């Protein structure tokens, strides 16, 4: 190989070092398996802690045997009594799964927004998307718009409309003359303020009990009523999550600029629309079951980028898994920190995320998107 190259380059191929260089070259092309294993491990640990900890402690062994027993084709003696089994399957598991799905949705949507806007500080909450979705959902819930077509209900649909309005607004403002990366976030602040004001107005028009219900949901709660919320969320997470993971490659290509992206075989405008719609739909679905949960979509992709990879084909799926693990952990805190009272998960993610956001801003040198 080396003799075919220019002498200047051939010089760098010291004899006897070919193996080492080939290994280095191979290593560079390997996928970050270690990172993937680590994040999956975090999901499993978070799930186990979440399933066993709470007002009624459940033994880890009992939980595992009960879960194994539920797998078709496997039959072993469940280590939990009937009451414990009911707690596990009707209260703990639905809530755990909901936390994993919402966390995964927000994590991957945040990663996708960061890629599209080429801005490492983009996040569904900071872009005003959550507020837009929240307004749509408040209007739908508050005024009893209770239509549904199979798993697709009016609340997520209204939330989706609000989310798209907000993200389009932020994107439009940030494209104005004299815009900088900070403009997008300030536009998000403006959109969030506008939509929050509209929410407050809508809440005032509701009866007091109804308003309190809606308000407690808005804080960001993982409240479940059996498996209903999980079933509502699953189709959105599966469809939009798959789309975002597939488009992670497009997000990488877009980083070399639109012209080169086209030369590499991608239609930049189409890719942007697909990703923004999928991420907004995912955010809207998450918001309509769990209210406004901030900063998951900011913190998790940042951590993945710092520890594992800068490529969106890695960041998007691992942010989904990381967001799932993070929200499951946070939910354990939400249920146990002030037990028997419950601390909304949105409050805890803000306590963690706001200082993180502040630190990133303070450091100034942004982690490159």
């Amino acid at each position, binding site marked *: 190989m080396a003799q075919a190259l220019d002498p200047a380059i051939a010089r760098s191929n010291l004899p006897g070092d070919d193996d080492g260089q080939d290994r*280095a070259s191979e290593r560079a*092309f390997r996928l970050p398996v270690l990172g993937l294993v680590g994040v999956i491990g975090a999901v499993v640990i978070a799930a186990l802690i979440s399933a066993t900890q709470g007002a009624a402690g459940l033994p880890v062994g009992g939980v595992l045997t009960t879960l194994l027993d539920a797998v078709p084709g496997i039959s072993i003696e469940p280590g939990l009594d009937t009451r414990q089994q009911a707690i596990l399957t009707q209260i703990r598991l639905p809530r755990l799964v909901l936390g994993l799905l919402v966390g995964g949705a927000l994590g991957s949507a945040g990663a996708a927004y960061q890629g599209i806007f080429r801005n490492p500080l983009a996040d569904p909450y900071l872009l005003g998307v959550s507020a837009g979705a929240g307004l749509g959902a408040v209007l739908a819930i508050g005024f009893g718009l209770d239509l549904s077509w199979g798993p697709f209900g009016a609340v997520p649909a209204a939330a989706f409309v609000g989310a798209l309005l907000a993200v389009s607004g932020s994107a439009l403002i940030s494209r104005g003359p004299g815009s900088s990366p900070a403009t997008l976030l300030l536009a998000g602040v403006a959109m969030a303020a506008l939509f929050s004001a509209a929410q407050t107005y809508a809440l005032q028009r509701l009866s007091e009990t109804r308003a309190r219900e809606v308000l407690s949901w808005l804080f960001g709660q993982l409240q479940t009523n059996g498996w209903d919320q999980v079933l509502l969320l699953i189709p959105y997470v599966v469809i939009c999550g798959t789309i975002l993971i597939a488009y992670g490659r497009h997000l990488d290509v877009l980083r070399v600029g639109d012209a080169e992206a086209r030369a*590499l075989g991608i239609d930049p405008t189409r890719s942007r629309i697909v990703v923004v719609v999928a991420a907004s739909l995912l955010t809207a679905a998450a918001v309509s079951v769990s209210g406004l949960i901030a900063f998951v979509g900011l913190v998790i992709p940042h951590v993945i980028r710092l520890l594992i990879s*800068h490529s969106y084909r890695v960041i998007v799926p691992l942010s989904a898994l990381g967001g799932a693990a993070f929200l499951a952990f946070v939910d354990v805190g939400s249920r146990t920190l002030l037990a028997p009272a419950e601390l909304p998960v949105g409050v805890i993610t803000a306590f963690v995320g706001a200082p993180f956001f502040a630190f990133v801003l303070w450091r100034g040198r942004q982690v490159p998107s």
Partner: protein
Amino acid sequence: MSADIGADRATDRAGAHTTGRPHPEVPTNGVALSCRDVRVTYGRFEALGGVDLHLDGGEWLGLIGPNGAGKTTLIGAISGLIDHDGEVALGDGRQPGARDIALVPQSPLLPPGMTVAEYVLLGRTAHLGWLARETREDRRIAATAVRRLGLQTFGERIVTTLSGGEAQRMVVARALAQQAPVLLLDEPTSSLDLGHQVTVLELVDELRREDGLSVISAMHDLSTAARFCDRLALIAGGELIAQGTPEQVLQADRLSNVYETPLTVRHIDGELCVLPVARRRNA
């Protein structure tokens, strides 16, 4: 090497292994690409006014001309990045896509945080299937491209830490990973010193011979263009002024006219050289 990229195209070129001027007897394999009456207008300004060109298989065509002549616009039109009238077609009549033409841009954007390996893998985008996951084969092709450009120890380096010459080689590696039969280079060496310019161009020439690629490159330096290209196309003011072998195109009167400065064409050690006419001091 022949087992690697483009082995199917490499066979008829094997053995043509010298650097510098290509052998005139190297056979060409039909037309690789043709442009018919290609026009580009920006508002009222006509950047390209009906250019006819053809590129034979395995040929290196150099686009020369002063700044603002339309070289980059023509490259953009051929690669489909710039809307144009007229026809750009492959030898078999198809419209070219990202699998047919690979582009090495003039000033590539280097994304912060991206590794060389990830950057070169972007070249595989047009070949990916469902879910856009690259296969083991895609990674092997990208790794081969990295090795062929002598970047095997750079795979894990962040692209923004590379020197100009290294970055240029990386961009060529990405184009190579694209496995397109036509390579477009937009002033590939404009930011490099003389040594690195020659290194990159000789590398491109070698890859062209091994893989049977056809190359179109916009070039600034006329003597370098004469040395590397089989044919030259001289463009000025969006019009094709002349095309043919370097000897046919590089004529002192014509060049002096187009570049609006007195130029002279000399043979030095068998190479065509275009030089500015020395002005006498104190004249």
